[in-house]
């Protein structure tokens, strides 16, 4: 039974009768008209219609995905002043998507290399890519890597890495509950539920301070059953942009380790949050340094701008190399019946860049300039609201980190901004700073001001 309440145990009897009717008379049987979906649809290809009632009659229309649906709505809008602050995809100051120069260079090399082939990758993906990805997140000198305790598999960006990790845990881990922060990325609960885990929430965001509710977080994780899985955003929390400080991370780490909870990091913004790859990996590295186990889902969608190529990796840091070998073998059993082996193009681009020191350096420079532009948008928006005297404390705009700002606007205010100002954003008040430019900041500030000051 799915949440829409639809269960298609289709009335086979209706179909049988309708088939019988067809055999007898060659016309549409009377029963069929009782099907609310029934319409006379002439079939030019056959004298008689196969079966007047469809097996799909009871399938309901699924709602548009709340995040990706924002772009769908934006595309439909004809207004010249529309702004898309929905999905987290970077835009230049000119409002255009960006393909990094270093990515174009890497692609040139790959496409023009006559020795390249398109043979199936191993189930676990491109070996080079896996090694380089583990080094990127854990640090090249990480003892876990040097001791061969990390099982890394290439997956389909962050989503795929989380899904494969979730499925693995549901099969092989004794605790089937995962704690995820309140709020979190909209797709997280669906991924883990479909993986076979049961989802619980821990307090995270404090709407009064617009910061971290550390007390609530620690309380909720303390009362979690020992061994339960805990999802942590490595940096640039989505949707709030509120990250723990290093001190707070240490608190969290101690609690997690003392309760033997299993950390599962979602790292989708390494390098994008602060501009520094190493700084943005500190939370993950802190946990690995204490010798304990964890999972990490990595995505290159944002930090290398490889969104549509679906490149990412799942790493499981284990206690011993022996366990890592066995874990990897079981990850293959999850992957093979899902999509057999991962796509080669994006992973090859990543490997080409990470393994070459020149290209790596170029990448870090381009990455930093993306992060810097976002930070400057934050400042501009904050200043614009201050200029307008918009009521309220808007300092969270410059305190929050990463691509998103949790404005604190409610769904009514959001709906108003969409309707009157053609601002497209998710109804939870999240805006993608990456979608802003100096040109559009004033318009957004006007919209926020109007939404906040209008009488109800």
């Amino acid at each position, binding site marked *: 039974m799915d949440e829409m309440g*639809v*269960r*298609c145990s*289709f009335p*086979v009897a209706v179909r049988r009768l309708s088939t019988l009717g067809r055999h007898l008379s060659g016309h549409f049987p009377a029963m069929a008209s009782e099907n609310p979906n029934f*319409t006379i*649809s002439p079939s030019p*290809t*056959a004298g008689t*219609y*196969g*079966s007047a009632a*469809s*097996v799909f*009659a*009871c*399938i*309901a*229309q*699924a709602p548009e995905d709340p995040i*990706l649906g924002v772009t769908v709505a934006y595309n439909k809008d004809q207004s010249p002043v529309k702004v898309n602050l929905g*999905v987290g995809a970077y835009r230049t100051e000119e409002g255009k*998507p960006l*393909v990094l120069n270093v990515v174009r260079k890497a*692609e*040139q090399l790959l496409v023009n290399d006559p020795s390249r*082939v*398109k*043979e*199936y*990758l191993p189930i676990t993906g491109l070996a080079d890519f896996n090694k380089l990805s583990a080094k990127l997140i854990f640090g090249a000198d990480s003892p876990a890597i040097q001791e061969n305790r990390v099982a890394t598999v290439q997956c389909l*960006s962050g*989503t795929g890495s989380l*899904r494969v990790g979730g499925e693995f845990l549901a099969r092989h881990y*004794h605790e089937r509950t995962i704690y995820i922060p309140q709020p979190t990325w909209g*797709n997280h609960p669906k991924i883990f539920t*479909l993986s076979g885990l049961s989802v619980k929430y821990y307090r995270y965001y404090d709407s009064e301070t617009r910061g971290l509710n550390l007390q609530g977080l620690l309380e909720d994780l303390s009362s979690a059953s020992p061994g339960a899985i805990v999802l942590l955003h490595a940096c640039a929390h989505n949707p709030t942009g509120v990250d723990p400080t290093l001190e707070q991370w240490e608190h969290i780490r101690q609690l997690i*380790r*003392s309760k*033997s909870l*299993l950390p599962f990091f979602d790292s989708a913004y390494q390098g994008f949050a602060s501009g520094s790859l190493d700084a943005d990996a500190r939370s993950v590295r802190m946990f690995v340094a204490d*010798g*304990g186990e964890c999972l990490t889902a990595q995505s290159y*969608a944002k930090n290398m701008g490889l969104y*549509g190529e*679906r490149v990412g990796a799942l790493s*499981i840091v*284990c206690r011993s190399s022996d366990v890592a070998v*066995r*874990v990897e073998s*079981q990850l293959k059993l999850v992957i*093979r*019946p*899902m*999509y*057999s*082996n991962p*796509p*080669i*193009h994006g992973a090859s681009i990543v490997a080409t860049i990470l393994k070459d020191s020149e290209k790596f350096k170029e990448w870090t420079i381009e990455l930093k300039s993306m992060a810097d532009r976002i930070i400057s948008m934050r400042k501009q928006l904050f200043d614009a609201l201050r200029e307008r005297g918009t009521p309220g404390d808007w300092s969270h705009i410059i305190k929050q980190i990463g691509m998103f700002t949790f404005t604190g606007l409610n769904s009514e205010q959001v709906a108003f901004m969409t309707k009157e100002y053609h601002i497209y954003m998710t109804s939870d008040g999240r805006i993608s700073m990456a979608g802003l430019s100096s040109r559009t900041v004033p318009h957004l500030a006007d919209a926020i001001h109007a939404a906040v000051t209008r009488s109800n």
Partner: protein
Amino acid sequence: MASSTMLSAGLASPAALRENTKKLGAAAGRRVGEFFLNGKCSGRVKMAVAVNVSRFEDVTLAPPDPILGVSEAFKADTSDVKLNLGVGAYRTEELQPYVLNVVKKAEKLMLERGENKEYLPIEGLAAFNKVTAELLFGADNPVIQLGRVATVQSLSGTGSLRLAAAFIQRYFPEAKVLLSSPTWGNHKNIFNDARVPWSEYRYYDPRTVGLDFEGMLEDIKAAQDGSFVLLHGCAHNPTGIDPTPEQWEKIADVIEEKNHIPFFDVAYQGFASGSLDVDASSVRTFVARGLELFVAQSYSKNLGLYAERIGAINVVCSFPDDATRVKSQLKRLARPMYSNPPVHGARIVANVVGDPTLFGEWKQEMELMAGRTKNVRQRLFENLSEKDESGKDWSFILKQIGMFSYTGLNKAQSENMTNKWHVYMTKDGRISLAGLSLSKCEYLADAIIDSFYNVS
């Protein structure tokens, strides 16, 4: 390590915990482990992890994939005469992987255009979905013109099958899938992981090394009404034995009678006979009868795009409104699996299949590939007939179609092929002719004859 010291201070040693695990069984052992974590010991642990045992200690080493594992074993073999007839990947006469010229042209075009790497919609690239449905059903097919087909770009054949399986599990929870005996090894894994029950219908007749047509019809008839019947559109894998057009009509009759839902796996369109239209005729026959059906499509072999993971799931519905709703639900299942599909392979297909010149060139390259495979069949047949003095009829090799041949060798005989002759193949007696060159046919014939007659 700090934790070892902690352990010697009174916690159970990892060895003792492992002992308990073995004695009491894994689950009980874990409970023992948990006791030690929850008891007095956890109070002492602030900085380090409680015990030195991995929480994945009980994870067993999975066996290598029966098909993909063959290539791994082949790589490890140092013999000069080794031959890889395992996975179905096309090789040239020189036994080299082959990237189609049209694919290289398309990639160069894409590079010149400098397209962006934005997320595709969840259902994939629109241009790809359009040409893919047209390729399969025929551009002028009424089902396309009436909007009755839901097409969703997926991760090649495997991904398409898995998405459909997830859909079946959710919306047809009482339904079973009927699989041919034998079938592609991964089919069962896919439906198992999707939690869709399956059973088998007779297919291969070892006495004739041909189709057990009566058995097939009987078993399909005996299944519960409304079952999904998995059919290989052409070039049955692993046997290479396809029904004749007359037999397809009779299969359709039984399916209609039982209100079953046909579910085609089309991984070799164009590769079986060399003609795209001929190879799609089974699917088109069923569609012309007005049946609702599923088709999983792959471009791995016919466009040589193996590692790009490009394919589609198509659902032919009775009404366009149903197709819209079905598509929306497929999207809902894809989002928590990988969010949206990879763009690169989709663009290649859209460029090749959507451009008349490149499409024409593609057809020629495909005829060459299918032609080479047919020539190799002929040569192998000739060699076997010459060398086999017993007068056994090897003509089944000529009658079989596509990339594979079911030799009729059993497991022990197949192992002999590998161990004695360094011929790598799957244990069910399947060889990939795409991995065979004319010059190696004689050697292979010797190996087959030796294994068939001298090993039981």
